[in-house]
């Protein structure tokens, strides 16, 4: 079973995506299943480390926090861009020491920080565990320290580690 479905979640997501892009019918279901099986094998050949999700319950909370945060920072960045040159904004680099080390958790954190306008992931040292971010509004530095260190990181740790 494990050899047939090395990545059951990935394969299920692909089948779902396939059915979403086509009309639901038995033929498409079979074709989609076959394709997702091949994709699962290909992925396991490339990536042997299997992501382990320990707590599914935290994922909806993470998603809700993220959506609210994206809305908030969209509004903030829009305001700053429209008043650019008159608001005395400066940008800054901030360094945040991270405790998470799992590549999957880091990848999700990168997606979160990129999807949220106002923060850009610049560098992460695997040896030091220090994440360097570029933030658009330097006066929000404390806010970003707090949101990464106290909001997202504990949730990602719960999910992945």
């Amino acid at each position, binding site marked *: 079973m494990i050899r047939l479905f090395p990545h059951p979640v990935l394969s299920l997501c692909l089948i779902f*995506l396939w059915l*979403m*892009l086509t009309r639901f019918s038995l033929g498409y279901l079979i074709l989609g299943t076959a394709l997702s099986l091949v994709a699962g094998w290909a992925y396991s050949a490339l990536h042997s480390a299997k992501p382990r999700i320990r707590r599914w319950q935290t994922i909806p909370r993470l998603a809700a926090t993220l959506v609210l945060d*994206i*809305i908030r920072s*969209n509004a903030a*960045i*829009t305001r700053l*861009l*429209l008043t*650019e*040159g008159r608001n005395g904004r400066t*940008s*800054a*680099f901030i*360094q945040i020491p991270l405790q998470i080390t799992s590549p999957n958790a880091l990848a999700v954190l*990168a*997606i979160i*920080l*990129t*999807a*949220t*306008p*106002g*923060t*850009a*992931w*610049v*560098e992460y*040292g695997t*040896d*030091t565990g*220090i994440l*360097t971010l*570029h933030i*658009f509004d330097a006066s929000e530095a404390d806010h970003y320290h707090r949101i990464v260190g106290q909001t997202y990181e504990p949730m990602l740790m719960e999910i992945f580690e």
Partner: protein
Amino acid sequence: MSPLQSVPLWLAIPVAFFVVLGSTLTLIGALGFARLQSFYDRLHAPTLATSWGTGGVMIASALMFSFIEGRAIVHEFAIGFCIVLTTPITLMMLGRAALERDRAEGSDALPLDMRTRPQRPDDPPAQD
């Protein structure tokens, strides 16, 4: 009657709202991209377009075509999903490349403590 004319007002209002919201955010992001001076600042402007810019247009399109076709159409969310998953790769690559270039040049764009890679404080200096 064209399918567009059959759309009732209660649906047209949210669809219009989301289309205008998404496209306005994308426009503001593009303007910011053109006006900002530093490379690192410019990394931020397009994220408006890839977050709610895409999101707004996506929601509007899903609402509209789900109504017209009479079934749930959620293709748009696949596009959004792919955009959300792939932008970090591009942005991180660009950001990293700019950082390494500025470090190699000793550029003024970086604050002093950023001009070398952060070291672990309790480590002996690197041997290489």
